[in-house]
């Protein structure tokens, strides 16, 4: 009877059966690479969660893709639904890796299983954290509000939607486990010993910045603690990353040579091979431009024409009569470290800004120093880098907001920043009416759940 069952067990050849994949470390690696391929789709970080809809609603382009922040509009709904669907689809892919990887530890070379498992856990935490930031109201004051499901296994089970507090607890728990696994696995990036190569094909430990590495976990912890207002811990992990991490400031030579991502500063990013196509098709349209018409628009935001982030990262698209970001117009090989078409997820600048924000009240001098360091590295020529000595908290807040906008432009973080602060307005880039703003409502900061999630999901009935 068992031999009969074996005979009836047919294995596909153009597709792979999970039962087969889990029998080798190669199979697990393919499953892991698959999750990154999901992440770089245009529904997620290949577009919408980096330079796409998120930057649009942060008012970093001249046109808001969501008219009146009505996410229920027929033109917006599919995009929003796709983010939810694709994220959870990838979470299922990640959970499928985690399901029984520990039972197959013997298939792996030393340390590889820990690295792979740690990466998967960090990825799961990263995605759930972003899902919560997108689909649940800002954390502060809503800690007990039912937010999203935290899906921890690959099975046909409807995970309950849980309170934000609980989601954050699970995010941090996964990050703790990722931390110890990546340490145990000996992530080469811990000490800055990296294998950097154009293609990481076949080398599992290569190009660690393009994966959820040890420092990505630390930086993400800083981002999470910042989001929930735990400044002590946010400062702890931001400082740890700044001080112990192997990340260096980018030089003007690199930037002018085409390193538009500031590769030495990238803590974690994604390899998006199709980025040139995306750039061509999206940034030439009105929706992704700073302004209708070309010129020096944007200087009112970037303040100093020598700021690398303005000088090298914006261009006049004369053909289309627009000012556009050229952060994603990347030329391979133009820099020693610039190896890939890259969309960054976390960069060093954000760590400085988090540290500055955590010190804003208790240690303004430290905050000023951090801001000045950052601005100096961005090519500011004035002695104080435009940061007045003895700045007040609100002045500091203003500086941080401005720098956050410059630093993470087209990277999908600004809307979360506004949301975290429940900012009553979002500014416009429009040069015509300086300081043009949109009045925000709290509801504008929350994406709606897909109808099918509301209908079939495991939501508490009283919600």
């Amino acid at each position, binding site marked *: 009877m068992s031999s*009969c069952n074996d005979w009836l067990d047919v294995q596909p050849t153009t597709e792979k059966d*999970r039962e087969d994949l889990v029998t080798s470390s190669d199979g697990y690696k393919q499953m892991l690479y*698959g999750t990154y391929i999901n992440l770089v789709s245009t529904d997620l970080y290949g577009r919408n969660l980096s330079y796409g809809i998120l930057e649009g609603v942060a008012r970093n382009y001249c046109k808001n893709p969501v008219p009146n922040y009505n996410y229920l509009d027929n033109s917006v709904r599919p995009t929003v639904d796709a983010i939810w*669907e694709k994220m959870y689809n990838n979470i299922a892919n990640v959970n*499928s890796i985690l399901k029984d990887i520990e039972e197959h530890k013997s298939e792996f070379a030393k340390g590889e299983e820990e690295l792979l498992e740690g990466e998967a856990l960090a990825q799961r935490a990263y995605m759930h954290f972003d899902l919560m930031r997108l689909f649940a109201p800002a954390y502060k004051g809503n800690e007990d509000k039912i937010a999203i499901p935290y899906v921890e296994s690959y099975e*046909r089970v409807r995970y309950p939607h849980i309170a934000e507090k609980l989601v954050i607890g699970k995010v941090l728990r996964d990050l703790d486990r990722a931390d110890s696994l990546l340490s145990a696995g000996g992530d080469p990036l811990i000490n800055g010993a990296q294998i950097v190569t154009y293609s990481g094909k076949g080398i599992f430990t290569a190009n660690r910045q393009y994966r959820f590495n040890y420092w990505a976990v630390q930086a993400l912890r800083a981002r999470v603690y910042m989001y929930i207002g735990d400044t002590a811990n946010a400062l702890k992990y931001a400082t740890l990353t700044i001080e112990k991490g192997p990340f260096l400031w980018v030089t003007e030579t690199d930037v002018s040579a085409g390193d538009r991502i500031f590769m030495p500063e990238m803590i974690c990013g994604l390899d998006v091979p199709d980025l040139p196509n995306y750039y061509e098709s999206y940034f030439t349209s009105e929706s992704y431009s700073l302004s209708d018409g070309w010129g020096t628009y944007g200087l009112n935001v970037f303040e100093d024409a020598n700021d690398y982030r303005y000088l090298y990262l914006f261009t006049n698209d004369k053909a289309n009569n627009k000012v556009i970001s050229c952060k994603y117009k990347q030329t391979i090989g133009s820099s020693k470290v610039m190896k890939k078409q890259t969309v960054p997820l976390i960069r060093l600048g954000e760590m400085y800004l988090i540290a500055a924000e955590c010190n804003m009240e208790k240690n303004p001098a430290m905050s000023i120093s951090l801001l000045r360091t950052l601005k100096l590295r961005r090519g500011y020529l004035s002695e104080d880098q435009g940061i007045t000595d003895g700045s007040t908290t609100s002045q500091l807040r203003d500086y941080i907001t401005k720098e956050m906008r410059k630093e993470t432009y087209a990277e999908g973080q600004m809307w979360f920043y506004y949301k975290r602060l429940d900012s009553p307005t979002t500014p416009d880039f429009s040069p015509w009416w300086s300081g043009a703003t949109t009045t925000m409502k709290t509801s504008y900061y929350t994406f709606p759940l*897909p109808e099918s999630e509301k209908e079939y999901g495991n939501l508490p009935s009283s919600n």
Partner: protein
Amino acid sequence: MLLLLLFFCGSIVANAQSSKTTISMECNNESIASVLKKVEKISGLKILFTYDEVQNYKVTASIKNKPVSSALKSLLAGTPFKYKIKGKFVNVTKNGRDSKSSGDMRANLVLSDNGFDAPSPLGAGSRIIRGKVFDADGNTLPGVTIALKGTKAITVTGSNGRYALSIPRDGILEFSFIGMQTKSIKTHGRNEVDVALTDDSHAIGEVVVTGLMDRDAKTFTGNATVYKGENLQAVGHQNLIKSLALLDPSISLTENLEMGSNPNTMPTIRLRGESSFQGFENVDKSGLSSDPNQPLFILDGYETTVSRVVDLDMNRIESVTILKDAAAGAIYGARAANGVIVIKTKRPKEGELKVSYNMDLDINLPDLSSYKLLDAKQNMELINKLGLYHFNDGTLRPEYNQIAKWVTQGVNTDWLSQPVRNSVGTKHSMNLQGGDNRMRYGVDLNYANAPGVMKASERNNYGIGVDLSYNFNDKVLFSNYLNVYQTKSTESPYGSFADYTKINSFYPIYDENGKLYKYYYYTDEYGKENNLWGNVNNMPVNPLYEANVGNKNETKSTNINENFSFDWRILSTLRLNGRISYTKSATKNNVFLSPNSATYKDYGSGLSDVTTDDQLLRGEYTFTQTDYESLEGNSFLTWAQGFKKHFITASAGVSLSDSKSTIYGFTAQGFGDGDSAEPAYAQGYKKGGTPNNSEGHARLASFFASANYAYNNRYLVDVSYRLDGSSEFGSAKKTAPFFSTGIGWNMHNEKFIKDLDFINMLKLRATYGEVGSVNFSPYQAKDIYAMTSNNRYDGNIGVILKGLGNEDLRWQNTKSLDLGINVGVFNIIDITADYYRKTTYDMVLPVTTPPSVGFDSFTDNLGRMRNQGYELTLRAYIIKKPQLNLSIFGNASHNENKILAISSYLESYNKSVDSSDGMSENEYKQASHKFLTKYEENQSQSAIYAVRSLGIDPMTGEEIFLTRDGKPTKTWSASDKVVVGNAEPTMRGTFGANLGWKGIYLNMTFSYQYGGQVYNQTLVDKVENSNKYQNVDERVLTETWQKPGDVVRYKANVTDRLTQYYTYASSRFVQDLDILQLSSLSLQYELPKRWIAPLCIESMRLSFNTSDLLYLSTVKRERGTSYPYARAFTIGLRANF
């Protein structure tokens, strides 16, 4: 074997009644038997002797006027025989034996067997009748049952086909044999009756071919209908499926209004309704059918495709058995839920080399009668009426002048006739066969060429088959059939027929220089060519131009089938059968889109948006290859034994199958003007495209057992069980059990019915059982990852989950009940009636999951559906004479489908049909104007949902609807949709007549259906929703609302240049659909032997057949929208040499 016990000599001597009579005779070395017969004749006595005893003795004697006793004495002198006279009887026995006891004992045996109740052991007139039984080809037939009607005298032929039977009196001898026509012969005092039986092709089949074993229909309780090859050919030569649908009420072919008579479109065939939701299953790629509701086709024991059946040479078909119920289908377990159609092909017969040849000439005429379009003048009238080419100030647009010019020039193009033709196809098939008792051989060759009525569309077949069989010791029979065939199908380059129905008749085909127009334009005052519609994207293209640019769509498939089987008679009661079949097929599809195609927009200067890049990439070649390979084997043991009145058949066996299909394909682009349609000329792969490749692999392992018990041929019981293991089931449950039981009662074998002379058949049947269907993809039960070949991460290939596997996935289970009755009365009328109820449980359907699970659905066993109905068949042999026979037949079926439970996924599908979620307003309008199927519980799957309409308000021309609550409204809303009809007819079937007269046979078959409804999409698309800039149905002109007071059926719905108005699903377009069709009319003539014998032809038959000659329908709609229907005429010739 001592064949013959006793031999009675009949006597008809009138004048000699006494033993005292004297006789005179001369005999010279004559056999005793013949001498004794002479004596009997002269004396009038009855002489009883044992034939076997006397046969070796001869006598020579000369007797003159001697009394019988002394005459016998001298005749038997020198032989070991003695005689004894007893009244009118004389006993001749061998010396040394007690003649009395031996004779009496034997006589008694015979008598008791024959039930003589005469006081004398040798009843008056009783005698022995002998003879031999042959088949039509002169081979002797063993096992034929011979019975004297009205008595209990019965015997069977031996291995040499001989028989002998004691009969008490003259009467009618009935010779019956499975698969042969029963023959009745009056004895008329004869002692020797030789009989040739002919194949039974008219009566209901007496053998049920289940594909695994042959069963005697008399003791079978399942619902199986058998059709002989000749029956099928009598109703048409086109293909097997068409003929079956005309003969059997349970089979229906879905009218394909779109593809009409396209020879390359396979029919949609249904047996007793549908048991799956269409479109919601993930169809098994490795399976043979992409249609989950199609019955299973078994050809000579192995599973095959509908296209193979359509292409099969009808002359090769021996019989087709349709297994409808669970009892019949249970032996196919998980595949049998939609019924099973078992096809058996002819095996070579013993004898000298015989050659038969068949030729058919198919003439197809396009049937365009359903089209009622506007001619150029009417079209102009419409344009004027609607002011389509008027500016707002009433002045005429420049386009108008161009059109008016054409109309005044008298252009009135008959576009419909442009892409069609009358086509003539031929079919040839030849068969050679022969051999002896040991070795038999057969070779068949066939060629068929079926050109369609659309120009250059074609389907060609050719094949060869070699059949060998070897009989080892009369114990084991080995057979092998190898068949290789090729099919080539070509789609018409003329494109869709719809293009010709839409193009306005005022467009000329050629320009002034006699060149084909590519598109239609007008030249403005600056000499620039301008679009006639003023809209770049809607430039009217000459469809004939597209036909001539060199587009191609060809499919070629090569198939090899090898079938080996053996039949081992271990004992007379025990047989072992086995079969292995291997099938391999390769199908290649080439599609070429010419770089000159009008698909590539090229409007010349000013209108062009074509870049150089686009120019280079024009032309596209797509190649797809599908390889299929399957290996099937089965083996089973059958035991059959009778004990007095009990008869038991039991069998058990195993079967295994492994089938695999692989699809490869790519698209290349960039062809030059004169380049061949070969990939070598392409510039490269299609931009952004990747080669594709997919694969499916399935295995099935089964065990089955069945038993049949018959008591005295009156009470019948059938049970069968099958255990299926399939690789497609979830890992948690790899095997599925199926069973069936059946009971039957042959009432005609009961005494109280036998006494009623007018009833010759009365059988009651009931069966119940479970069958299954596995119509999901083999991998839905697993967690399957897809490779991301064209997306890499950091140079690495990754894998991504395709879906949420369900390891608990099971087969669909259909519980089927069938009650039936077979009645035969007056030897003239046969009636069969059946009631069935099939409930499908555990339907494989998607289950909606919240997207947070990672996928929007997974596949599970949910949903229930029921089909119930009845079938009725009647056949009456009105005249049964050797030179003239006439029979009429009719059948009817009724099926009722009811959805009992649906899944959440279907609920959300239903909602999406009615909601505008995620759709733009225009998309919603478009979607709503189409009638979309919904699946609601307690409704039929074929229910039609629309908003009830009160018609067109004569004052405003607007439609008035009824809300769900019955309130009139002018606003259409999807939530007001209710069931307004059902596409399933109340009753459908066929009827007709067969007439045979002196070698001429006429068959006429009508099909009918009534009681169903249809949503007349033609009316919607061609009248109300039509684009009036194109050609439209004439009802636009005559029956649409134009001014207040018009009482008409269609609202004024004018298309302006850029906006399309839509008519929503409304009950106004639901019409009752009743159809009467002369589906087949055929005439056959068997040429008299004396004409053809000099040509060394044994028999020759000419036939003429027409199909679909007449079509009457209550609904006026366009039939064959993409490919027209054809009326077919076939002239056939069949000769045996």
